[in-house]
């Protein structure tokens, strides 16, 4: 029997596959389609201290093998997430990773403290990399000093392990990874979206109301994979890799490059069953490649 389990700080995953934050809401919609207990974990939509309405529409645009989004962290706010979304998720036997966002350190700290105390939140994902909010967000993710300090502040109040989500929109991703490691991060999740733009061909106007948006989907996979590979060379922290994953082969690539687990974002929109399908395909794929467990395969590209 192929062993799919992955053990990471706070997360004893039955398999390394989870939906990425923002692409799966709080699970309710996909629960109409399949049993969420199949999933290794669920990264829920970014939660902020207050209700956020997000950006005006249009919020998405299609690009070659990818899409842009500028949702702007719309979410019902900490209180409602704690009161209704998280309790609802308790019926499923899977780990919940809460994506925490804000526009200043205090916001992050407030959300982290509260949400990490929810009984079914197993880890936090610190979203210092959202390109679609005017204040904070991405600046936290591009300055190593700020990223380090924010990680430490959140780490100090969190009752569960803290994973920090890195932005690809930086000159040196390794430097950021090192910074959050110094700040006490228990793990890294990467990558968030690349900043991009699309124009309406008739008018020349940006298609996305926010002007720019975050690029995701297969188009960004080569960049994501390169970054995971580079960061793995420089840290032993667990990495949850993502960016353009659409099938089991993509998963193998990220694990090979050094990710310990992976998240699937945009592909859920194209094929809502993509996560369970990948989970089902994984044992045979590992077996064909000559591996008996996920953990054996992790990082193989570095051992050649």
């Amino acid at each position, binding site marked *: 029997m192929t062993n799919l389990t992955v053990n990471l700080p706070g997360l004893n995953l039955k398999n390394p596959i989870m939906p990425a934050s*923002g*692409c*799966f*809401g709080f699970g*309710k*919609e*996909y629960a*109409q*389609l399949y049993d969420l207990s199949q999933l290794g974990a669920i990264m829920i*939509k970014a939660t902020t201290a207050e*209700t956020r*309405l*997000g950006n005006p*529409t*249009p*919020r*998405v*645009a*299609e*690009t*070659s*093998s*990818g*899409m842009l*989004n500028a*949702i702007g962290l*719309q979410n*019902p706010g900490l209180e409602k997430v704690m009161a209704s979304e998280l309790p609802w998720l308790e019926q499923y036997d899977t780990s919940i990773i809460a994506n925490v966002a804000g526009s200043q350190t205090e916001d992050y700290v407030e959300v982290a403290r509260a949400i990490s105390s929810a009984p079914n939140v197993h880890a936090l994902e610190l979203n210092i990399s959202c390109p679609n909010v005017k204040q904070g967000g991405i600046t936290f993710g591009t300055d190593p000093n700020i990223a380090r300090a924010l990680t430490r502040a959140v780490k100090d109040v969190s009752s569960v392990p803290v994973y920090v989500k890195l932005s690809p929109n930086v000159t040196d991703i390794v430097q950021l990874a090192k910074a959050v490691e110094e700040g006490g991060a228990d793990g890294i999740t990467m990558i968030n979206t690349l900043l991009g733009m699309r124009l309406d061909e008739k008018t020349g106007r940006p298609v996305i109301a926010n002007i720019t948006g975050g690029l995701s*989907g*297969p188009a960004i996979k080569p960049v994501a994979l390169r970054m995971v590979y580079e960061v793995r060379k420089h840290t032993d922290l667990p990495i949850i890799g993502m960016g353009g994953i*659409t099938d089991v082969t993509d998963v193998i690539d990220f694990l090979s490059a050094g990710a310990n687990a992976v998240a699937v974002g*945009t*592909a*859920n*929109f*194209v*094929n*809502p*069953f993509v996560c369970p399908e990948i989970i089902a395909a994984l044992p045979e794929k590992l077996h064909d490649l000559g591996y008996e467990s996920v953990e054996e395969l992790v990082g193989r590209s570095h051992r050649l």
Partner: protein
Amino acid sequence: MIRQEKMVVVSQQQIARNIFELIVKGDLVQDMQEPGQFVHIRVADSFEPLLRRPISIAEINREESQFTMIYRSEGRGTSLLAEKAVGATIDVLGPLGHGFDVDAAKAKAYLIGGGIGVPPLYQLAKELNAKGVETVHILGFESKEAVFYEEKFKALGETHIATVDGSHGTQGFVTHILNELPKDFDTYYSCGPTAMLEAVQWAYPEKQGFLSYEQRMGCGIGACFACVCRTTKSETDYIKVCSDGPVFPAGVVIV
């Protein structure tokens, strides 16, 4: 229940300029609840184009497990859809969203459609007529070449056509026709460009109405927050076109 199904193309026909009528067959049809729901279509096996395309359900044939879509072939996705021949399979996710409240109309209803907003009104008209509600159809198109389903609507009730260039029916917009028509109906239903929906809403502030909205979509099932609209119901919330709509009672959506 929402299903993802490889449905089989039963018929694909061009019925007006750039407008295609596509009939597909599969089990998913049995779950269709209301006129005005839509499906989300994956047009290619590859990830290019990436996103699914939302298309309204235009007619439902439960006995044959078939349903009809009418769409404009314009961009990359719909052009690929137009290439699907009889016997080909199409990846359909649906039925999605909430449609028109058929029970709301009592005796007489106005069905007001513009362009590719016309299709869902056809199944609606059929169901209303089946319930004994008289339907009047006011349909707007760009020009004569873009008009479709005129005879089919006529078979169900009084039908008025407006074209922007005046090449068929009344010249102008559906509102030009509405201005001339009596207000002797109890309920209106409308689907079309947002500007048209706004105008219709303004024209009948005192009537009960239902409007079907469009937004750019990601997931199509309510998970990604791409397709939101502000709502009069709450200052701190949005409604999602894909899962709360696409049909909303008049007065609910702020555009």
